[in-house]
Structure formats: C-alpha cells, structure tokens
C-alpha cells in the first residue's frame, strides 16, 4: 500500500495489462510520445514500443472502429479518448457495432474492448471539454460502464474491464487525475460490478459516483458537524446498476439525495430515482432529491462554472431538504 495519484492508479493498471498479455495494446490520441493528455500512459511507449502504445490520428470513429475490429480479430485493445465530448464522434462505432455485434450474430462475435475517457467539469475548459455524458453509454445494452471514484478503483477497474470479454466504457472524471489516495498495486482487483458504501450513516443516503463522490463526502463531514449522519453510496458501476445496493441503503435511511454531475433531464439520477420508486417506494419517508448540473452548456468563467456544478453546499442543502419535518 502506498500513496499515489489517480493517474498513477490508471497507469499501474495499463502497465500490468501490457505486461500480462502480449495481445494488449493501447490506442488513442497522444497516448505514446506525448504520454497521454492526462499523463496516464507516460513512460509506457518507452517500455513497450510503438506497436503496443499506438498513437492514433484525430479520427475517433475510425480508431475506435479499428479497435473493435482488432478485438474481434483476437487483440485486446485498451482505447483512450481524450474527453467524452470527443467520444461523441465514435458513438456510431460504440453503439452500432461494439454494443450490437455479439447479439446480432447470436454470440459468434466477441468484442473484448476497453474504452477509457475523461469526463466532467471543474477545470474551466468550457462547453466542449467539460460534460458528463456517462448516461449516454449507460443507456445501451451490450456496453458496461464503470466510473472509478478512488485511486484504487482507477487501477482496479481498468484491470477488471480488461478481464471482461465484452466492451467496457470507463469514465474518469478529469479533476480526479492529480488527486491522491491509497493504492495497493498487488491486491487482486475488487469486483467493479457492485456499489460500495463509502461512509455509513443513519439519517439519509447520498447516492453518487465518479467525481461527485468527494463532494458528497465533504458534504457528509459538514452535516456530521450538525449531528446529521448520512450514508454515502458510491455506485461505481453505472451499467448494470447495483439495484440491490440502492434499495438497501434507502431501506436503512429512508431518505435519498442523488448526486450526479450530468444534467438532470434524462440522466442517471433519474434512473436511480425510478429504481427507488419501483423497488423501495414504501421505504421512502420523504421525496427523493437530485443534485445535478444546471441545465446549461458548462461555462468557462470560474464563478459560472462553479454555480453550474454540484457542490458540497448544494448537497448539504438537499440533504437538509429531505430531512425537513423529520419526526
């Protein structure tokens, strides 16, 4: 166990996968000589060479499609897309090919593909580099979607996705890359397919994922000072959702605040909310609250960007709201 950054967690897993299996190769814009836009693959070109750490042209649909074909042909590509906004250019290949081929051929074709992408706002990058569109991918049967929120998960989820025989999308919130946490590089990866309670509490549940976990934990600390104990559930896997864990936390606390950096309309928080209505309606003692991004393309100016995103203060207010009138 050591202290490490989130990007080191990713890099450790990429190196492990490259060492473990000669069929593995990294593919993406500037993953090689540049070392990755977020330095996740720094040093790997030198260790593994240009065929296994392969720089791609700026052609997301083309190189993601090529990765799908390579996976069909027996390789194990791990693709990096610089930001989720650019991944929209590859939606055709991901949604129409990667997600469908297994079913459409009655199991003849497998697509063992890992696609990592940076998501999220908070670095004043404006509306074309700051969005959280993980729900777009989580909507699609045939894909799996993971959202590592900790340094250990940043490592474990890459390895688990690599071990999965089907296409897995990993959304890495870009504000997390320089953050530090504990990393055990020798531990067997924790299963990524279920949610984890990051903080226990009796009064209400905050259900969140990815870059919003740390904000939720800060909010939980602030609330604890006022005697309010919230449970924080990290969803981790966005498709399939861990429905049992979602029901279980609300069965313990009877109140829920859903924190999700994507927009409220049609977002993942809406899916979690619908799950609660379907599966835990009679456990709820108060209406569910959602803390999502304001419905605006994420603006550049710091004060505007801050105002657009979930914050510990907004989460605290939402928790107090669902606790209003508590007996």
């Amino acid at each position, binding site marked *: 166990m050591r202290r490490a950054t989130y990007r080191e967690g990713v890099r450790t897993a990429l190196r492990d996968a490259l060492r473990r299996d000669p069929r593995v190769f990294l593919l993406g814009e500037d993953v090689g000589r540049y070392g990755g836009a977020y330095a996740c693959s720094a040093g790997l070109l030198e260790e593994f060479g240009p065929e296994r750490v392969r720089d791609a042209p700026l052609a997301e649909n*083309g190189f993601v499609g090529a990765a799908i074909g390579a996976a069909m042909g027996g390789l194990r590509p791990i693709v990096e897309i610089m930001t989720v906004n650019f991944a929209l250019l590859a939606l055709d290949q991901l949604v129409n090919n990667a997600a469908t081929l297994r*079913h*459409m*051929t009655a199991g003849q074709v497998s697509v063992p593909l890992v696609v990592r992408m940076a998501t999220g706002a908070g670095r004043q990058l404006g509306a074309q580099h700051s969005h959280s569109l993980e729900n777009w991918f989580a909507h699609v049967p045939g894909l799996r979607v993971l959202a590592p929120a900790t340094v250990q998960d940043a490592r474990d989820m890459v390895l688990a996705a690599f071990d999965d025989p089907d296409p897995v999308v990993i959304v890495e919130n870009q504000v997390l890359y320089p953050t530090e946490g504990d990393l055990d590089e020798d531990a067997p990866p924790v*299963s990524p*397919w*279920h949610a984890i309670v990051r903080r226990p509490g009796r009064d209400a549940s905050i259900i969140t994922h990815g870059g919003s976990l740390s904000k939720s934990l800060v909010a939980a600390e602030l609330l604890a000072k006022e005697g309010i104990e919230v449970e924080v559930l990290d969803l981790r896997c966005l498709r399939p959702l861990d429905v049992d864990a979602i029901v279980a936390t609300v069965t313990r606390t009877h109140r829920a605040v859903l924190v999700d950096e994507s927009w409220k309309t049609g977002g993942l928080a809406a899916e979690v909310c619908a799950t609660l209505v379907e599966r835990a309606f009679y456990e709820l003692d108060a209406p569910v609250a959602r803390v999502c991004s304001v419905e605006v393309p994420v603006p550049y100016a710091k004060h505007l960007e801050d105002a657009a995103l979930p914050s510990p203060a907004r989460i605290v207010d939402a928790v107090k709201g669902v606790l209003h009138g508590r007996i």
Partner: protein
Amino acid sequence: MTPEPLERMRQMVRIRRFEERCAELYSQTKIRGFLHLYIGEEAVGVGVMGALTDDDQIVATYREHGHALARGVDAGALMAEMFGRSNGCARGRGGSMHIADVSRRFWGGFAIVGGGLPIAVGLALADKTLGRAGVTACFFGDGATEEGAYHEALNLASLWKLPVLFVCENNQYAMGTALSAHAADTELTHEPRAHGIVAERVDGMDVVAVEQAATRALEAIRRGDGPRFLEFMTYRFRAHSMYDADKYRDKTEIARWKARDPLALYAEYLLAEGLAARADLDAIDAAAMAEVDAAVAFAEQGGLEPIEDLTKDVYTHDVSARGAP
C-alpha cells in the same frame, strides 16, 4: 486458388436464383424487414471471393447475400435467418442485413453505411500484429465514400500499412441519389490515391476481370505493400430495396446495363471459348434451383427462438450477481 471456369458461373447463378426466390418470398411475407438484392452485381462478389483464401476475412454491407453465398455460408442457414428462425445463422437476431458466419471469417453485413470500414482496418491490424497471413476484404458502395468513416479508415490502413483490400462496388447510386449528385469528384479512385493507396477502376460486370484485378491487388498486399483499392463499375438491376419504387433511374439506363448482365456475358464467354456446353450451363442452373429449394425447405422447418432467450448474447456472461467486495 483460381477457381475453374465453371465454378465462377456456378457461384453467380446460385446468387441470382437465391435472390430471385428471396424477392418472391418477400412478396409472400415470409421474409420481412429491409431486403436489398445484389442482382446485377454478382460478378464483383464472386470475382473477389474467387481470389481470396480461407485465411482472408470479409466485411460486407447490408447487400451481402451474394458475398455470403460466394464465401460458402450455407444457403439454408442464410434463408432461415431471413425467415427469422432459430436455425438461421444468427438464430433470427440479425436478418437480411446482418448475415455473419465467423467460421468462414465472414464477419457480417454492416448496415450503417461506411461503418464496416474501420472494423476491417482493425481486423487487418490484428492479422498483422499476430503474424497471420490473412487479408481483410472490405466491401462498400459508392455512397459510403462520402462518409467520414471511409476517409478515416483509408488513412488508418495506409498509415499503418495494413493488409486491407478496399472493394468499392460502384453501382452509381447512393440509395436514390446518383453519384454525380452525391460526389463532388466522381472519380472514386482519386481519394484513395490521396491517402497513398494504389487504386484501380475495373469493369465490375466481367467476372474474370474482377478476379484478375483482385488477384493482382492481393499479391501486392501480401507482399506487404499495404492496402489496395479497387473500384468496380457495376449496377443493381433491381431497386435499392423492396420498398423502393425506383423512380429516379432512367429506363434506358437500366436497359443499357442489363444488356451487360454479368451472368450472360460470362455464359457467352464460356460457350465461345469452348469452356462449357449449353448442357453444362443448364445443369448449373438446375443445381442452383435445387439448392434454393432445399434452403427454403430448411428455413420452413426451422423453429422459433424461445422468448425466454430474448436477452441471450447481449453479454458473454452476467455480472449483476453481487460478488464479495
């Protein structure tokens, strides 16, 4: 590797008779959905397949019955797939536009125009990386050349010197829009050349010319020269799909192309060269009809997939069961 002369005829006739029956079955509502017939274009698929080996891979479009049959996909499994039956090659999950038989390295019909090209690039990358001998033949139409994926795939294949044979079936129309109305430059060999790929235009109604051009291109690719591009001038005799009233094509244009029917041209050649007698051609036709009859019978006797299996094969395995953290 080169098929004997009658084999080319056999393959083209199989495809023609199979698809003529498909049109009838569509009218009888045995086949539903979209049905795109290859009639008129058979020489391209048959000529290229004749030049490929078992190690090579094929990526096709939604107009792929002919390619599948010429590659050796079982006619019964193909017909049953279009009937939506469990003895179809994709157990009714794919239909006419998504015929796949991975045992034949026939990766399927890709029904997003241009969407198969990046896949072909990746299959070729896998072959090259793993030291396998195969070439990936990627079929697409003139309409696909306007897609971004087309240009991205040409660049990737050329940049990485991959063993891809790009096979452009230029049937002059992107659905109902003529080439001159969808391409600023109607010389389709220009764009691959701009990406550093040797490109050649070939008569797509002459099965021998197709096969010879494919053989030459494949030799260059197998030498390690990187991808090659072949544009085959061809024409579909039927409408785009069974839904298409075909109001956008001139009748004299259709008649002009039908006068160069690839089956008739090759039959004349075989007879003139003394490579076949009329009785040989009749026997090929009778065998093809018998094969189609058998394929329909096979499809008719197929069962329906159980509804309980509806969500089968979306994933290889289920991960929703909670494991210990």
